[in-house]
């Protein structure tokens, strides 16, 4: 995501009013409110009783594995799919019965859906004509939209004469040109290669900042979600597991699924019992302490790899720290950091990340002690289904 990530087709345009951050198409974003929304196909619930509020001007990402109901949710908001239960409000007004063409939302489709029989300019003019906007004003708006996506010179071309990244930007221009209150994007970068994707993520972020429109963005790429979003809603089996800012989801996952879907972690399973200041979980015949408390006794403790430290086998943990014996099974050197793969006495895996400059001198095969602060152990109810998703 540095300047080296700029793709060859990214003509660095003379950003017209760089710095000021103002854009001719800027407007106010709408507040979207989903309450108890479901969509069933026969017995199968593609979207199952979800509730979500997207604040005006917010960048909300719907993140989840394939088939988890992200597209269906987006299509319900756009008006292409009608919900079988629940309500949908935009700026306080219920819009379930408003047809798609009257919702005034911009939609960017995964494969762009540019009209092949129209030029770039005609594609962008399309929503303006539907709104009866006069010719002169149309020309102005088209220019502004093309400038926003840095495609000023491409108005007369047909979509097939553009590269994938350029087509994607035309799709964005077409969706923002009429100043919609909401912009919905369904994996808009899914068909592009990695470099182009990295660069266009920054472009999308910039456009969001310039316009102030509410963005709802669908992806199954967690890194993309982290780069772009104000908040992320994690989908699984048609339900929302957790909504929150990236740091919140990472540091305080609400479910084992969220913990495993976002970032790497070590999962320790066992029976939980309550203690005075939290819980203790029996793992490999040792008590692991955590400040958390849960209902039921089947528990999983999640620890992020950078929270774990490797010490010699005879190391004695300080008060308030947990410790487990482990064997180093592999090491991966990553430049700025190093990852150690370990095996616990019961055979389950653990993962440690050490920053460069703070590397221990452990090697593969070493017998060591893993330690971490009790406060870094996130206690969650165990969920046996989760393994199936990730293996």
């Amino acid at each position, binding site marked *: 995501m540095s300047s080296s990530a700029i793709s060859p087709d990214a003509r660095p345009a003379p950003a017209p009013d760089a710095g000021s951050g103002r854009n001719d198409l800027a407007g106010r974003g709408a507040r979207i409110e989903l309450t108890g929304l479901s969509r069933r196909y026969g017995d199968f619930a593609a979207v199952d009783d979800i509730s979500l509020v997207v604040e005006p001007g917010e960048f909300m990402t719907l993140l989840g594995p394939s088939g988890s109901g992200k597209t269906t949710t987006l299509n319900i908001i756009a*008006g292409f799919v009608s919900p079988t239960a629940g309500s949908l409000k935009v700026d306080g007004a219920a819009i379930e019965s408003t*047809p798609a063409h009257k919702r*005034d939302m911009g939609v960017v*489709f995964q494969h762009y859906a540019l*009209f092949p*029989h129209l030029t770039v300019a005609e594609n962008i003019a*399309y929503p303006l004509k539907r*709104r009866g906007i006069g010719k002169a004003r149309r020309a102005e708006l088209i220019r502004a939209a093309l400038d926003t996506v840095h495609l000023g010179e491409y108005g007369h071309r047909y979509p*097939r004469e553009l590269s994938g990244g350029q087509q994607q930007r035309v799709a964005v221009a077409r969706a923002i040109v009429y100043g919609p209150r909401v912009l919905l994007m369904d994996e808009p970068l899914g068909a592009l290669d990695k470099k182009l994707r990295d660069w266009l993520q920054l472009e999308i972020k910039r456009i969001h900042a310039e316009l102030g429109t509410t963005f709802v963005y669908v992806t199954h790429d967690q890194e993309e979600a982290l780069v772009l979003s104000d908040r992320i809603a994690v989908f699984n089996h048609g339900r929302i597991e957790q909504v929150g800012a990236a740091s919140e989801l990472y540091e305080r996952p609400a479910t084992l699924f969220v913990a495993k879907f976002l970032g790497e972690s070590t999962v320790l399973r066992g029976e939980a019992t309550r203690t005075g200041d939290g819980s203790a979980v029996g793992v490999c015949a040792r008590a692991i302490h955590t400040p958390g408390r849960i209902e039921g006794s089947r528990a999983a403790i999640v620890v992020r790899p950078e929270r774990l430290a490797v010490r010699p086998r005879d190391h004695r943990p300080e008060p308030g720290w947990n410790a487990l014996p482990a064997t180093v099974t592999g090491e991966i050197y990553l430049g700025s950091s190093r990852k150690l793969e370990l095996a616990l006495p019961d055979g389950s895996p653990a993962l440690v990340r050490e920053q460069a400059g703070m590397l221990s001198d452990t090697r593969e095969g070493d017998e060591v002690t893993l330690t971490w602060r009790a406060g870094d152990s996130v206690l969650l109810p165990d969920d046996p289904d989760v393994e199936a998703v990730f293996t």
Partner: protein
Amino acid sequence: MVLDQLSGDVSGAARPAADAPSPARTASDAGGRRPALLILPALIALAAFFLYPLALVAWNAFTDPTPGLGNFVWFFSEPANLATLGRTFTTALWVTAVSLLLSYPYAYAMTVAGPRVRGLLMMLVLLPFWTSLMVRTFAWVILLQDTGVINQLLGAVGLGPFSLIRTQTGVIIGMVQLLMPFMVLPLYAVMSGIDGRLLPAARSLGARPATAFVTVYMPLSLPGVSAGCLTVFISALGFYITPALLGSPTDALISQQIFTQVNGLLKWGRGGAMGVVLLGLTLVMIALLAVSLRRAGRRVSR
């Protein structure tokens, strides 16, 4: 009657074989002259039994009974001939228009139907496509009788009886059914290639469903429309069997007149001149539509 099974695209589309794309050429056909010899036998057959007969038609038109333009002068100066020509044209236009009107929603339905229904709809098109033209025309002779099934059905709901056989209406009804597969197949081929996400896209941009259909779907389906219309129109221009059996002898079309001139009156020159006019018209139509098709294709092809 091969003419009635016209259009390369159509037979290609109807043919059930799977064609892998991307011809992989190697450098092995050095020179490539020898393979050309393989074309010769077919070309000789075509020269003897296709090109030579057509040349003879033209030759007769200009030389029989006396050399000159006499036959063409006769053709264009007889009001009856011009009326025949006009009738042939209007019949072909009607057949094309009605076919298009019925085929467009039918082909569209094929693209939105599930696989089973689509298979059924396709079968319903292919069955008549493969059935002998003579058999189908005979069926229409039965159906269109003054006391035939159609008039019985209409009678049952208190309409008619209409005279259908030996009228232009009867001819059009029969020809539409006979030629509809040639409209449906190219339409379906083009429509099934239209990206299904474009219509929701248009709606998200503020187009009402009908507007979205007219401004996005219809322009993209135009190549299929012109291919289908061309095929049906020029087939209809040259139709003989169906108008001969379903139409009225006094309202004959140009094919029937040619038949009468040559077979009945032995006027080879006059029949030839009419043949030249008919063939010329056909070629002009093809040229016109080919140009417009190419223009449409340039805009739409990705």
